[in-house]
Each structure stands twice: as C-alpha cells, then as structure tokens.
C-alpha cells in the first residue's frame, strides 16, 4: 500500500515522469519485425505516450520518428519515404533520418525556417524478430547476452499482445509465482502431447505429472527471492511429499521483463512495454533449447486469439473474456477458457487502468513484488539524483557476462533442490545445437 504520489511515481510513463525517465534508459520493444513485412514498410508506434512512425529506410536500416508533422499535425505514416527519412504528403516538408526538417518546398527560395524545425528521431535495431528502440539520454546501453538474443533466429519466436492497463501491474503478475496455482488452475489435465507452444501444458520436469497437476495439488509454494546482476531470481518450491521437491525458477529482468519456463525445451522472455499510462503490450520471445521453433504454428495459434494490425486480444472486457460459469464449475478456475494469457489479461485489466495501490494489502506471497518495487524505487531515485548505477545499464564488456537467465522446472530429492535445477539446466544447454553454455 502506498500514497497516490508514490503510485504515480512508479507507474506514469511520460517523458517528464519519474518512471518514464527511468524506462527511457533502456532499449524497449517498438514493434514485431513482421509488422514491417507488408508492401510498404511503415507502421505507427505508440510508446511511452509518444506517437511515432516506424519505417525501413532505402538502405534497409530502421527509422523511428515523431508520427505527426510539426506543421499542421497530419500523419506522417502516409508520407513518402525519401532521402533516409519521410516527406509529408500535405505540403512536402521533408525530414531526414535525424528528424531534421531539410525542405519546405512551398516556402520562398532562401527560407531558413526549416533549420529551426526538428522532430524526434530514435535509433531502432532488430533482434530475433523484435524491433527495439532507445528513447533516452546519451548512448544506449549494450544488450545483455540473454538466451533470447544469443539464440539463432531459427530458435526464437516473437509475438505481442495488447493489454488495456498500465505496464507495472502487467509486469507484477509475472513475478507472482503463487497465482499460477489458482488463476491458471485446470480442474482436469490435457494430454501433454497436445501441449506444444502452450504454457504449463508439458510434463513437469522429469516426471510423468502434467505441470497443471503439480500447480493444482501443491498450491502453497515456499518463495525465495534474490537480487542478481539482471534483476531478481525467484524460486518457488513445492514439496511433493515423497522425498521429492518441485523447483520452479523464474526471473525479473530489470526494468520491465520476466524470464519464465514454458516447457521442458522452451523459455519465454516477456517485456511489458508501456503504450501510454493505461495501455501496454506484452512482447514475448519464445526461445528453444531443443528443436527450432515452429514459427508458423505458433503464430497461427496466437492469430486465432488476436486481431491485426493492433494485436488486440479477441477475448477482452467487452465480451467478459468469454466467461462461462458452467466451465468454471468443471474445467477451469476462472471459467475463462484454456488460454492462460486470457486469465492474466483479466486479472491485470480488472484492477483498473492503473492499479490503485493506495488500497492494496500485499501478502507474504507477494515477496518478489515487494523486492522488485524496492529496486524500482531505488532506480527512480538514482535517475532523479543523477547518481548511482542503474541495473543493466551496461557496456559491451559487462553485457557479455549477463547471460541466461536460467528459467526451468525441475524435480529432485528435497535436500538437493539447489543442484537439481542448475544440473537440469546445464544438461539442457549441453544438448542444445546452438551455443547456450553459461560462462
């Protein structure tokens, strides 16, 4: 629980807001690469409250600039791609790749007005299916050597979805290991063989027990939270009662991402990216340590649930997320279908556009959220005072050492739980066809 001022400080994302200023110190997903895949490589982007236009230049590099022309405010998405930048279709004003206005053809010869007009322009790069941008001061940090960036493109699938709520409550559901045993509880277990590409649908670790059963029957895990060089490692321990313990290792990657297991061979690294104060996109990178990802199948599964071009989920508040009280009696805890993404979406959206933390009562199962908020506040304070190091604002040399993070489900003898998960992960990396070794 906190005051309104403190809640604003950690949630609002405008360029003049404390959280907005902190987030701008990091690379943020701006779009999926496929969004520039049409006949004309231009897409609108709204990121941290700023309206931008993303485009591919003639030299194949990426441009990201203010979306509305500084003349009369029309949409540069319909402009003409020229000279590394965009020419507005209204009066032909041209902006080069730095956002500098270079020409105003309807002005008199010799006019120098254009020299005083410049729009925002941010660097943009593509990595493994996601287009990233940096909207902060000075030079951007280096990308850490996370698995989702190290893996070859054949082994990473990227997708995104719109949630109609503030980014922070979206991030916080990802660092809340207790909720999976309730919100995502399946009252019956599907055959794990049908579970490709679906969270919680594989067998748990080396057992024959479906993960859904582990979560359902052992709903009170012990949580351990530790700070790391990338953010937090969160471990949920479930004693299975037969001398065995289930270990689930998830992670917070500062400031707004999580890395969680999806199946025995895949992990998900997921960013919660502010569109503005009341909307966000989750951007997921599914990384495989086994077979190359079946991108077509994974995209097809998800396009059944999302509309284009805005990747908004078809199940949403307007249709009650498909809520079915009969289903809630026999099949799912929520009555909202089998897609766990929808459950999360309901939870974070039903808190309200921005969760009112002045009325909150955190419990012991929120230990990771508590730790994360301390890190978040400390980072916001660092930016405000202009002193202290920010987590993951790193140079190339340091970035090489920030790997993984390990994210896995494992079962082993209760007393040996600490080696059980590291061994299991090492085994998975050793048999991986791409170099996933941790140094």
């Amino acid at each position, binding site marked *: 629980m906190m005051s309104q001022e403190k809640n604003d400080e950690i949630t609002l994302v405008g360029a003049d807001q404390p959280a907005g200023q902190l987030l701008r110190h990091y690379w943020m997903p701006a779009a999926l690469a496929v969004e520039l895949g049409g006949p004309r490589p231009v897409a609108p982007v709204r990121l941290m409250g700023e309206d931008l236009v993303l485009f591919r230049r003639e030299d194949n590099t990426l441009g990201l600039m203010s979306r509305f022309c500084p003349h009369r405010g029309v949409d540069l998405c319909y402009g003409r791609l020229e000279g590394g930048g965009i020419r507005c279709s209204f009066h032909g004003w041209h902006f080069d790749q730095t956002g500098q206005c270079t020409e105003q053809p309807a002005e008199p010869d010799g006019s120098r007005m254009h020299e005083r007009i410049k729009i925002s322009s941010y660097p943009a790069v593509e990595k493994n299916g996601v287009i990233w941008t940096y909207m902060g001061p000075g030079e951007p940090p280096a990308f850490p050597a996370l698995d989702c960036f190290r893996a070859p493109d054949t082994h990473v699938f990227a997708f995104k979805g719109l949630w109609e709520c503030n980014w922070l409550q979206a991030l916080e559901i990802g660092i809340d290991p207790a909720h999976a045993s309730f919100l995502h509880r399946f009252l019956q277990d599907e055959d794990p063989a049908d579970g490709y590409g679906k969270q919680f649908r594989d067998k748990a670790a080396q057992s024959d027990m479906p993960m859904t059963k582990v979560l359902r029957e052992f709903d009170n895990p012990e949580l351990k939270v530790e700070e790391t060089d990338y953010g937090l490692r969160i471990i949920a321990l479930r004693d299975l009662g037969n001398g065995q313990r289930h270990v689930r290792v998830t992670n917070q990657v500062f400031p707004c991402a999580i890395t969680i297991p999806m199946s025995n061979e895949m992990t998900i690294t997921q960013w919660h990216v502010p569109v503005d104060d009341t909307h966000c996109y989750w951007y997921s990178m599914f990384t495989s340590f086994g077979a190359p990802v079946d991108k077509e199948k994974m995209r097809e599964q998800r396009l059944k649930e999302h509309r284009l071009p805005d990747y908004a989920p078809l199940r949403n508040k307007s249709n009650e997320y498909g809520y079915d009280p009969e289903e809630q009696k026999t099949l799912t805890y929520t009555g909202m279908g089998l897609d766990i993404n929808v459950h999360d979406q309901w939870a974070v959206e039903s808190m309200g556009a921005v969760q009112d933390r002045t009325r909150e*009562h*955190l419990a012991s199962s929120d230990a990771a959220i508590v730790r994360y908020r301390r890190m978040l506040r400390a980072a916001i304070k660092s930016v405000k005072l202009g002193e202290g190091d920010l987590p993951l604002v790193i140079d190339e040399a340091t970035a090489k050492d920030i790997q993984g993070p390990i994210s896995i489900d494992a079962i082993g003898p209760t007393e040996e739980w600490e080696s059980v998960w590291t061994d299991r992960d090492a085994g998975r990396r050793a048999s991986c066809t791409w170099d996933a070794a941790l140094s």
Partner: protein
Amino acid sequence: MGSKITVHFVRPDGSVEAVEAETGESVMQAAVFNDVEGIEAECGGSCMCATCHVYFDDAVSSLLPEAEEEETVMLEDAAAEVRPTSRLSCQIKLTAEMDGIKVQIPDRQY
C-alpha cells in the same frame, strides 16, 4: 469521519514532519496518506510485514493499548532495532488524546 489532530513524525536524522491526521485512522495511515518517508506498510495494515515499525516516547508508549500477540510476534521480524517502545503503527489507532504526539521513524524498514 473523525476529528483532525496533528502527529509529528521524527525522521532518523532528527528532523520533524508534522502532518494532519484524523482520529480513528492508524498512525500508519497518517504516515502513508501524507507521504511520510520511512514507513513502508507493504501489507496495508494486516499486521503481516513489519514494515510500519515505529518508536513512541516513553510517556506515550504507556498510554497505548497493549500489543496483541500477533503484533508482538510480527515485531520480531522488524529490520531496525526493536525497543520496548517499538510498535507496528498499523495497529495503533489515533485518538483525540494523541493530538500532538511525536512518532519516531526507525532507520530502516527492511
């Protein structure tokens, strides 16, 4: 709706922040709703987190209702030194007699 009183929160460095509070609310609520630094109140007053720990001076301390077992047990987890005058401020309701009291904020809550 209660009546207005003043509570003086004393920071670890000795400086004082006077806030307007209402009888019936807890000392913790008076701090959180006035944005007083140093009282975290993560569990929102459920006596579950020991991050609303404060010290009262001796005179006030003896006037307060005795701590219930739940509070005494939870106080053991407080991060800062636990003194005879330590209380969890979410468990202390403000009354008219407490107008003007001083409440000492410990050096840390975690």
